[in-house]
């Protein structure tokens, strides 16, 4: 079984780095912006089955208007990524999800606050994050650099899209 998953978020929040950390267990400090789409595959072993996640790493947006929602067609789950050191990227991730839901209907998602290794530049309050948790959302504070919670987040989504 394989499932299409889309990475959604503003530019430079770490979507490509999260995929690389999850798929290849590596991290590069060099920022290389993604243009268009990169597609990766990773098998995830769940308790009762194995699922191949087809990860669509979509170009990050600084202008929501240019987002190509058609790339999400066929996706069964979303990884929303915000940069914990740039508060404005949270709104971008949430808006992208709204765009996708308007086009394709609701689908499972996880919300990642990435770059948790940069504690001293952290710009999102615990209270704000708790409010999302209280909505029942699956929230992860991840670091593509250290790998913290990255596997957890993808495994969680894998079990959500196969449920």
């Amino acid at each position, binding site marked *: 079984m394989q499932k299409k998953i889309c990475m959604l978020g503003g530019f430079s929040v770490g979507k490509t780095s999260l995929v690389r950390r999850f798929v290849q267990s590596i991290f590069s400090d060099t920022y*290389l912006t993604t243009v268009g789409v*990169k597609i990766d595959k990773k098998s995830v072993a769940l308790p009762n089955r194995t699922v191949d996640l087809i990860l669509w790493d979509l170009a990050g947006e600084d202008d929501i208007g240019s987002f*190509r929602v*058609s790339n999400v*067609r*066929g996706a069964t789950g979303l990884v929303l990524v915000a940069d914990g050191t740039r508060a404005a990227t949270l709104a971008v991730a949430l808006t992208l999800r709204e765009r996708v839901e308007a086009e394709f209907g609701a689908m499972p998602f996880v919300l990642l606050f990435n770059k948790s290794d940069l504690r001293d530049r952290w710009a999102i309050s615990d209270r704000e994050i708790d409010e999302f948790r209280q909505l029942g959302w699956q929230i992860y504070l991840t670091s593509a650099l250290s790998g913290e919670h990255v596997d957890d987040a993808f495994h969680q989504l894998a079990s959500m899209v196969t449920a």
Partner: protein
Amino acid sequence: MRRLPREVGSWIYDFFYNEHSVAYLKIDARLCIAAKGGNVEHYGLSSLCIGKPVADQLEFMEGLLPCPELPCHMAMVELPNGRVADLHLFTGNACVWLLFLDTTAERDNKQRLQQKAYEMTLLEERERQLNEKLQSTNEALRKSQEGLSREYQRAESLLLNILPASIAERLKANKKIADNHAEVSVLFADIVGFTERTRSVGAVTTLAMLNYFFKTADRLSERYGCEKIKTIGDCVMVVAGLPLARSDHANALARYALELRKAVKRERFAGEPLRLRIGIHSGPIVAGVIGKRRFAYDLWGETVNLASRIQTSAEPDEIRISDATHQLLGPKFVCDPLEETELRGTGRVRMWRLSA
């Protein structure tokens, strides 16, 4: 439809075909690959099997078919072999066609530009963040400076409680302080029977008694321009003519003594008013600050010693003054001469009782 000459059309076809490495897949209604053609090697599609489901062989096709909205276009998709292609899906002849058009060069160009633009935006964002941080740091600094200046004022007012203002100023300027004063008047006053009363009234009343006495002494010293120098047990030492000299120091201190005697009687402790023994003497003294951490402004000299002796010899409720002080007093004061008395360490001394 506008028709181009056959040669032009043919040239465009060849040019486009080569430039974009055109390849295609034909997908049947069961979503299996029915045919492939064009430059399939360019995209690493040579090994695709005809007759097998497309989504099993091309991962990115997962979930895309059947597609209710055709034609559909996905720009700049990076394929597993590293080539980048625009993908076009359209229908024709009861099949879906998947067209590959190479856009690797365009993607790379766009990426270079986008990279610069995003890096610039990130720098600007970072600059803004750092500026905000700088501002809040400055604000915190300003607040702590305010706190510091409040602390300084508090320390200053504490210092002024301990030392006369002009002495405190000189001390802050790190000057040594030891002055000869030619003419001052020195007063000692203590509570009659203090030790015995302490025993009978208990600690709380004792403290209240002392507090009342010293507060009254402080308050009056401000009013009459005298300086309270220190307290020793239940005894208070007050000086006039210090640290700034004044010619009427004896008058000032005499008025102070009369008022002090009256004022302490206004409050009763265990039913009894306070009664004082007061002694005054006038003469030259040395004044200065001793100590480095716990400052004390103090006076020394024979004048001080004699004032103390006179005070000790005074009767309850009596203000006893030396002959030297008496000579300095103005005509308004009422004084009675006392018999010459032998004082310890001084010999016979002529003294007066100040009564009004």
